[in-house]
């Protein structure tokens, strides 16, 4: 019975996305949001502001910075600048995600594209990469809509639980589901088959943590630029050696 329901849901791209949102990616992401709910509750945010920050920011670094600066009483300009600089990666994720879904040149209105682009997180983007091997490019957009709906709803639940139970949940136990996300996404990244992306993944994974103690969140951007460029160089060398062979 369960297998039949699963097959039925997988036959429709939107519901396949929804189903994916409620499986491992959703569990991992909502666990991280549970941690955010705990953090926001401890910081003294009210539940409305906590939920609104989840929905309108939809970026963990952005949400954590918002809560930290809000509780520190930071001025508006500092809030804007810090969030702006810490979220450059959103540009690359959106650019890559929109190209993957093949909606860059479609007739979909700009506001709709911007609306769905809002939900392109590292988890959402990694799932797009994963299913791009099994779905046609045109099927990725409905898949992503379902995925986003699933992720948003499960993350709302995770944040709410974290917010309400922040004083009774033992942090060591919360850490177990939070661990799902980094491991799951790294595994998804390692599934890349092209040398170009494999080199980028390994370089980015090494450079990011090495630079972090020195330059903080900028390490993510630098690791992206360096990792992507090393991947490009490796690809060029491979092509040249194939031509020479």
């Amino acid at each position: 019975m369960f297998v039949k329901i699963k097959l039925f849901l997988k036959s429709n791209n939107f519901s396949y996305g929804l189903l994916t949102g409620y499986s491992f990616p959703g569990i991992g992401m909502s666990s991280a949001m549970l941690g955010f709910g705990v953090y926001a509750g401890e910081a003294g945010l009210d539940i409305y502001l906590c939920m609104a920050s989840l929905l309108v920011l939809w970026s963990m670094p952005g949400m954590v910075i918002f809560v930290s600066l809000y509780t520190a009483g930071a001025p508006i300009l500092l809030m804007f600048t810090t969030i702006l600089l810490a979220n450059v990666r959103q540009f690359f994720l959106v650019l890559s995600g929109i190209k993957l879904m093949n909606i860059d040149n479609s007739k979909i209105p700009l506001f709709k594209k911007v609306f769905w682009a809002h939900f392109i997180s590292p988890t959402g983007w990694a799932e797009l990469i994963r299913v791009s091997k099994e779905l046609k490019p045109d099927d990725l957009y409905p898949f992503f809509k379902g995925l986003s709906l699933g992720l948003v709803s499960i993350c709302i639940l995770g944040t709410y639980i974290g917010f309400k139970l922040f004083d009774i949940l033992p942090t060591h136990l919360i850490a177990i589901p939070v661990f799902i996300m980094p491991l799951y996404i790294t595994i998804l990244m390692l599934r890349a088959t092209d040398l170009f992306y494999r080199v980028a993944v390994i370089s980015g994974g090494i450079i990011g943590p090495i630079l972090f103690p020195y330059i903080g969140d900028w390490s993510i951007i630098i690791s992206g630029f360096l990792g992507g460029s090393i991947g490009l160089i490796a690809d060029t060398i491979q092509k040249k050696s194939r031509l020479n062979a």
Partner: protein
Amino acid sequence: MLETLITKQYLMPWILLFTAALGIFVWRFLGVVLSNKIKKDSNFSKWINAVAYAMTTGLMLRIIFFPTGALASTELFDRLLAFIIGIIAFLRFPKKPILGLIIGISTFATLIFYKLYF
């Protein structure tokens, strides 16, 4: 007008949230608008994808090495050991990635429970 709004304390958190949202929106909007200016199979498009791959992996590894929130209450050794075991399991059985994930999480959970209760 803005000054009146800012002086109303109950509105201040919402103004700050709006400002924060604007800081992220800028990048997402630029990503959407510039996406149709780049050819899908060009080297630049590939590079953008590779940057996203590298950034995402860098971010995930940063979470393992320098976590915030609940994960920060655990020890680096536990996180790293479980992570490496999970990745090795995945590399050993690449056609069943879920196996790597389950083995990694089980290892982490075992280490946490062992330290908590033994």
